[in-house]
């Protein structure tokens, strides 16, 4: 440690490259925002109903993002080997009140750049896809407006310099997801799903607000005096979390509050229930929101404020932390749920939940880079899978997503969709050399290498389940005999259920373009979709194969591009004190000197806490914790590959036997075998979580309270004397029963009566008279004030 500091002092650091795209990356969210307003104001008058603005603005964002990525790579290249690559930061004062100043700005580093590129890329492709998929929809313009604003929200969140902008982007996404999921709101099921998504996510959002507020009040003094940054600044919070200053309880609570927000947004157990229901939205929405952007926001939050979680939850510590436990539960239960779904999009939704669990598991176990890498690869193959599902429903199954009723044998009719689906499925399962293999295997590998063997086993089990349920879905969709709409039966769609919302709104029947619109021509039987649909799918499929090469650990160090470009270097940064509070601190390469921390010799394997993680840097600050990287071994990879192939094989054989040959030993097993029946019921009812939330929480908590309140009201009318008499009587009853029936059911009755009597005392609260409410309010305030006065004097 001491010798290192000396090295650094004498070392001359090379200046970092900048560039126009890096300096102006903030334009990436601004352009779609402007696009949104243009669509809303003028969209309906334009020849393409506003869709061209949406596509163009996101294409512009994509160009900006790619330019920023290019220049970021150059910037990393220009830095020395152990030099801290400072983020490109620009801040502006947003507003100020009473001496508190709020800034808004961009913070571009490796993580921002990679997510920026992914979001802009997928958004652009999804917009192109939607041109065809939603053609003739009655709210075509609104759809593109909401989709564009949604992307703008995500992009703003990604580049946010401070938690205020982060929160803004986060909430814009929440709102837009509500609008998009409920796009076909005429159907009650869709608007219910939209509300469910909105409220479930909002439940978690409370945690984000609380967490941001806690971090601000805890960190503001330190960041202002040491860095000249406000307590909202992400850099400030990161440095503060690693400085050794924070009180461990405060930062633990803040980390947990923030993680609750991630649970809501990223569909982690137990708030994952909204995600599958959110499939009620149009398929492009599912593809954009629920595979690659919105649900990734929670994972991104953890990755972005990683130092807070690292310190607060003691990641890489000896015991497992809450992130890992939640993530492990999520991986397994979501994968199991995917087996009993008949709706192809729901299979994918549960698969997303499960994959998000992997990302969280990686973050919780200290595998930061593999988790971010998995965001990257997962975005491509999952978006591709969703778009394939959309393509099937669009052109083959007559807008049904039911695999059992309306699909089967489609591989002959839809070669491009089929090939893309298979490629993406293999990527999702983690088959070498598709992209999912590299990222997922790296997560599992690192979890094991950091000493969490149990979680590694869960990860491997999850991989088995993933392979199995995806094989089942593939078999049902593309193999076997065609069924329902896929077999050309048109009558069936009169009895379609909630998901084929297209028809329910008469979008086809009423729209004039329908006749010339071959993509929708259902009467020709199943066929391949048009180029606007297949080209985005094909591009994504290519990336599903190739994206893994960006960090292909099996091929050696030189292939680990993302490790060089994205992972922040855990070095101590010594910098001059910035000016007064509020003045923005622009990192300039010349002003920053870096002290490299010797990576611990054991960092390759096993479990060692680095100086940046476990103790405060002595001089200067540290913006990123040191994490270890597992050494890739083919033996471990072969094990996980074997598990994946076992999953595929087992599921294939079962699917062929069950769905293909209708093997009598399997058909009806859930009726005959008790264990199978219980398991199936549990899964089919989603572990009864929805029941718990709706019937359990709503009925058992809200109901009794209102009933008790009503009961009390009856008594208020009779006045205080009557009430006193009633209390006395119930007390007397308690005594009576205690003496008389003590042996039989005394305890039960006593507790029930005690509850009743306690209720009686709070009864007058619900009188409905405003004056009484006021009296109670002021009396409470007075009593509280008196207590404070007495305590203070």
């Amino acid at each position: 440690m001491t010798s290192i500091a000396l090295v650094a002092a004498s070392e001359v650091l090379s200046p970092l490259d900048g560039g126009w795209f890096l300096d102006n990356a903030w334009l990436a969210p601004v352009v779609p925002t402007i696009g949104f307003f243009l669509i809303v104001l003028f969209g309906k008058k334009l020849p393409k109903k506003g869709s061209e603005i949406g596509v163009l603005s996101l294409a512009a964002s994509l160009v900006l993002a790619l330019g920023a990525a290019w220049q970021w790579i150059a910037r990393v290249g220009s830095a020395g080997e152990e030099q801290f690559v400072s983020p490109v930061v620009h801040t502006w004062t947003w507003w100020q009140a009473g001496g508190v100043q709020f800034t808004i700005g961009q913070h571009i580093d490796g993580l921002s750049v990679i997510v920026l590129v992914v979001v802009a890329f997928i958004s652009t492709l999804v917009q192109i896809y939607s041109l065809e998929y939603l053609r003739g929809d009655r709210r075509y313009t609104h759809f593109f407006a909401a989709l564009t604003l949604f992307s703008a929200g995500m992009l703003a969140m990604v580049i946010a310099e401070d938690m205020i902008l982060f929160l803004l982007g986060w909430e814009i996404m929440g709102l837009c997801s509500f609008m998009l999921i409920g796009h076909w709101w005429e159907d009650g099921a869709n608007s219910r799903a939209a509300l469910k998504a909105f409220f479930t996510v909002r439940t978690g959002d409370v945690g984000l607000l609380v967490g941001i507020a806690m971090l601000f009040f805890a960190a503001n003094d330190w960041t202002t005096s040491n860095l000249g940054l406000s307590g909202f600044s992400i850099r400030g919070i990161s440095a503060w979390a690693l400085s050794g200053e924070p009180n461990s309880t405060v930062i633990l609570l803040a980390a947990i509050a923030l993680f609750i927000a991630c649970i809501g947004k990223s569909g982690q157990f137990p708030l994952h229930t909204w995600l599958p229901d959110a499939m009620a939205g149009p398929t492009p929405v599912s593809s954009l929101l629920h595979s690659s952007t919105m649900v990734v926001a929670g994972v991104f939050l953890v990755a972005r404020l990683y130092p807070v979680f690292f310190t607060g939850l003691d990641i890489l510590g000896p015991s497992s932390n809450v992130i890992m436990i939640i993530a492990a539960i999520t991986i397994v239960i979501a994968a199991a749920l995917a087996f009993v779904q008949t709706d192809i999009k729901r299979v994918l939704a549960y698969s997303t939940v499960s994959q998000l669990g992997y990302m969280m598991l990686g973050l919780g176990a200290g595998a930061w880079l593999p988790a971010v890498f998995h965001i990257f690869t997962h975005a491509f193959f999952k978006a591709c899978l969703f778009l394939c599902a959309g393509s099937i429903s669009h052109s083959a199954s007559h807008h049904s997503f039911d695999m059992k009723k309306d699909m089967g044998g489609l591989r002959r009719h839809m070669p491009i969709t089929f090939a893309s689906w298979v490629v993406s499925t293999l990527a999702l399962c983690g088959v070498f050399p598709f992209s999912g293999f590299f990222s997922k295997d790296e997560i599992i590998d690192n979890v094991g290498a950091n000493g969490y063997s149990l979680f590694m086993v869960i990860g491997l089990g999850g991989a088995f389940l993933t392979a199995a349920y995806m094989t089942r879905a593939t078999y049902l969709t593309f193999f076997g005999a065609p069924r329902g709409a896929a077999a050309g039966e048109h009558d069936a769609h009169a009895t379609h259920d909630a998901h084929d919302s297209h028809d329910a709104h008469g979008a086809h029947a009423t729209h004039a373009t329908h006749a010339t619109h071959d993509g929708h021509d259902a009467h020709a039987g199943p066929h391949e979709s048009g180029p606007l649909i297949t080209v985005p799918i094909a591009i994504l499929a290519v990336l599903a194969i190739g994206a893994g090469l960006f960090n292909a650990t099996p091929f050696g160090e030189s292939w680990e591009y993302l490790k060089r470009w994205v992972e922040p270097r855990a070095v101590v940064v010594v910098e001059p004190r910035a000016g007064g509070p509020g003045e923005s601190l622009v990192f300039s390469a010349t002003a920053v000197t870096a002290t490299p921390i010797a990576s611990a010799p054991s960092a390759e394997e096993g479990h060692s806490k680095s100086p940046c993680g476990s103790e405060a840097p002595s001089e200067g600050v540290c913006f990123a914790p040191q994490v270890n990287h597992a050494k890739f071994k083919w033996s471990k990879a072969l094990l996980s590959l074997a598990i994946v192939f076992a999953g595929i094989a087992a599921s294939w054989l079962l699917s062929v036997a069950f769905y293909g040959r209708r093997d009598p030993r399997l058909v009806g097993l859930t009726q005959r075998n008790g264990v199978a029946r219980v398991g199936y019921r549990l899964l089919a009812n989603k572990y009864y979580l929805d029941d718990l939330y709706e019937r359990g929480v709503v009925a058992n908590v809200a109901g009794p309270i209102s009933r008790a309140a009503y009961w009390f009201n009856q008594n208020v009318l009779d006045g205080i004397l009557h009430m006193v008499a009633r209390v006395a009587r119930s007390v007397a009853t308690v005594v009576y029963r205690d003496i008389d029936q003590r042996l039989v059911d005394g305890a039960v009755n006593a507790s029930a009566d005690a509850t009743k009597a306690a209720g009686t005392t709070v009864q007058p609260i619900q009188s409905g008279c405003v004056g009484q409410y006021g009296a109670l309010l002021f009396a409470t305030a007075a009593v509280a004030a008196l207590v404070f006065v007495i305590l203070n004097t």
Partner: protein
Amino acid sequence: MFAAELLVAQNIGFAVIALLMIVGALRVVTTSNVVHAALWLVVVLSGAAAQYVLLAAEFVAVTQVLVYIGAVMVLFLFGTMLTRARIGTERDLNNPYWRLGIPVAGLLFAAMAIATVSSFGDEQLPADARVVSVAEISDQIFGPYLLPFWALSFVLLAAIIGAIVLARKD
């Protein structure tokens, strides 16, 4: 010498106005005639304006007179006239549980009185206080407190629209 006399005068002024305000306030909450209550409220509000002058807040005092006595009171009188046909004494202005208010108000006053006396005791206000100028207040409003000002503008706008929407006949 002059200052001391002025202070005496100020204290006497305070006492007289304060007494008037308290009596007025009590009448507002006890009178059985709504119009009388409104007029007693005028007394209280004018007294408050006078107290603001004593506290060297001339601009606020003028605003108080303009806004409260000029506008709010007219609103109250119109509200009274529009909501009841009869102007005069009536019995039924109090809640059946109006006695509940006395202990609550007493408790609250006890809390505040104890806190005030124990914290400030016989601390004197600065006798040579300068008058806060309008320019200074405007610097405050359009400087550090600009954001609340904006928020307030929206509140007023919303109130105007809301009042129109609520009160119009349709």
